């Protein structure tokens, strides 16, 4: 199954020989620019409107000291930063930093575990490989409806033995999240790893590299786009998860952001909507920043040059 990258690598090199390196600058006037690039800007702007519209309600509510979330289409009727200031009187910032910690550690752990699993599946042939892959995928589909009972009982028992991964501990929550580290992420990486020519490994091994050196020295560097994607996906999913988190983290002092915000919104009548909206806006910022930061790795362009390295 790894024939593709091999043949491709040779094909690519022949092409390169035939065609001199080109620096193709877009010429041919505005019309061509509109046809190839310009429309994408228009599309992007329209599409951003679709993305942002519901979020404007949240932003508007966050700037309005009273009022409701969706009660009126008359947005931005008031502009006050009172709610944002008000957050400092709550546990919000403690939740915020705990979320950073929990999601950060979860994300690093997930990347490492999923990548090493994907490496095993992609580069070694062992008994039960195919079955293992299928099982990994199917296990993730198991209904989680009783998770809240099971996780509670499990962490209750663990607390007696390892207090730091027991009930109420952020690390207990991280461990629960890492239980889902293999799964969809492994598949994403597995597919990506498969597109990296096996010849690279072989060559390195002939030079005396161990499998660990191949993994850390060659593979992991070549797959940085997908590592960044998985890191982000896992960060976001643990960042927004509140069902398990509220079982594990029993007290508001220990909450993550998602649980804290959920709690604010959970009492329909007494919900502090404006505070909640301000919290949600601030909570989104780290995700955006993280994505901006990771973007350059995600689109770093796994060039053929790199593969041939």
């Amino acid at each position: 199954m790894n024939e593709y990258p091999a043949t491709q690598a040779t094909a690519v090199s022949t092409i390169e020989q035939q065609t001199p390196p080109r620096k193709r600058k877009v010429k041919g006037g505005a019309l061509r620019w509109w046809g190839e690039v310009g429309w994408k800007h228009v599309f992007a702007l329209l599409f951003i409107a679709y993305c942002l519209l519901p979020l404007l309600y949240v932003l508007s509510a966050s700037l309005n000291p009273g009022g409701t979330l969706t009660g009126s289409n008359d947005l931005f009727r008031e502009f006050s930063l009172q709610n944002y200031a008000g957050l400092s009187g709550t546990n919000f910032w403690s939740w915020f930093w705990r979320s950073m910690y929990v999601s950060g550690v979860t994300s690093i752990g997930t990347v490492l575990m999923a990548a090493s699993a994907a490496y095993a599946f992609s580069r070694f042939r062992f008994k039960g490989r195919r079955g293992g892959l299928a099982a990994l995928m199917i296990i993730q589909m198991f209904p989680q409806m009783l998770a809240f009972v099971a996780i509670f009982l499990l962490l209750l028992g663990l607390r007696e033995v390892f207090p730091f991964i027991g009930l109420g501990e952020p690390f207990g929550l991280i461990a629960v999240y890492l239980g889902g580290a293999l799964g969809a992420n492994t598949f994403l990486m597995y597919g990506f790893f498969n597109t990296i020519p096996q010849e690279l490994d072989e060559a390195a091994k002939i030079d005396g590299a161990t499998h660990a050196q191949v993994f850390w020295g060659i593979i992991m560097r070549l797959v940085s786009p997908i590592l960044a994607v998985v890191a982000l996906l896992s960060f976001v999913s643990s960042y927004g998860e509140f069902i398990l988190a509220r079982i594990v983290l029993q007290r508001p002092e220990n909450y993550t952001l998602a649980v804290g915000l959920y709690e604010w919104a959970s009492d329909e009548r007494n919900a502090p909507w404006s505070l909640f909206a301000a919290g949600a806006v601030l909570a989104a910022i780290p995700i955006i920043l993280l994505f901006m930061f990771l973007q350059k790795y995600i689109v770093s362009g796994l060039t053929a040059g790199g593969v041939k390295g």
Partner: protein
Amino acid sequence: MRKSLIALAAGVSVVLTACGGGTADTNETPEPTASETTEATESPSGEATSEAPADGGTLTIWADETRVAAFQQLGEMFGEESGVTLDVVQKPTGDIGQDFIAQAPTGQGPDMIVTAHDGLGQLVENGVVAPIDFASKADLFNPVAVQAFTLEGNVYGVPYAMENIALVRNNELVQDTPATFDELIAQGKAVEGAEFPIIIQQGPSGDAYHLYPIQTSFGAPVFVTDENGDYTTELGMEGENGTKFAEYIQKLGKDGVLSADLGGDQAKQAFLDGKSPYMITGPWWTSEFVDAGMDISVLPVPSAGGETAAPFVGVQGVYVSSYSENALPANQFVDFLSTKEAQDVLFEQGGRVPALIESAEAVDDELLQGFNEAGAEGQPMPVIPEMAAVWEFWGGTEVAIINGTSPDAAAAWQTMNDNIKAKF
């Protein structure tokens, strides 16, 4: 081989850091592994126990965000008397009952919970709450509040606050209120600039709670009550009176007075924006109306069907867990809650009418007194476990009648009654 272990190493090192300093900011010491197994409470309480060994130990209580401060204050007051530490754990409102039922059997649940009375049936069905001694104090409390916490002869919780809906009037638009609901609608329609004569929140799955005053004014309570005022399982909304009510809301729906589109969010905003002279709502929003600078009054809902419009009364109270290993101090705490001192604190922090008559009489707040008067004729929300099914059928049928999905109101109402009866 060496680096393939780094994944594991990373895990281990994080474990160690988490162990060392990760929890320092939470100011929480993990329970010692060989902890006293008698301690039914959670790890932070274990810590508190060791600090005050000579005292009555620690009681854990779950309360939602709006009540945590009040109970912390009560805990300090109670602690001074008894030496018992009250550990108030904040939980989301909707989770308190469900998590309690799930966690109590593990022995790790709280000793007490603070929640509304309408979950009583389910709590008792699951055997997680214990009866309390209340006979000697019952007379000091509002009978509706006591009734709310009574099931099959046992009192299961100390009531402390009551809330119900009433008619809220925007005094800038109208100043006098007629005696019947039809006149009120006519008056509301005549108000210049008002989009709605009255706002009653509904939503896609209906809201029988907010329509209940109108329903009772037709003499069609949800269940028939016996001579003690306790609910029986006989449906009171079946029959002629119920049908009249169904036809009435059908008419209101056709006239545009009631609309399924008017959910809680929309209703609140419309009233805030002065789009209606009246709204049927509870004390949870009136404080926001006042904060927004509105001049409002709270009145009983005028009758639509000739009889008194009686809203449901919701009662907040404190239950003792039947799994508590510290039940004796817990019972002392609920005894303490029935004192005027404690009920006054709960009123100051919570802003709802106290259940203790003496405290309620001392309340000096026109709006709350208005709610109190409107609720005087009210009945507590029924607590039987089947009530959840009743709510669903009830609201769903009402909204189908209002928005015309069920054109034959009488038939739809009868189907609803049949479906509900099938649950018993």
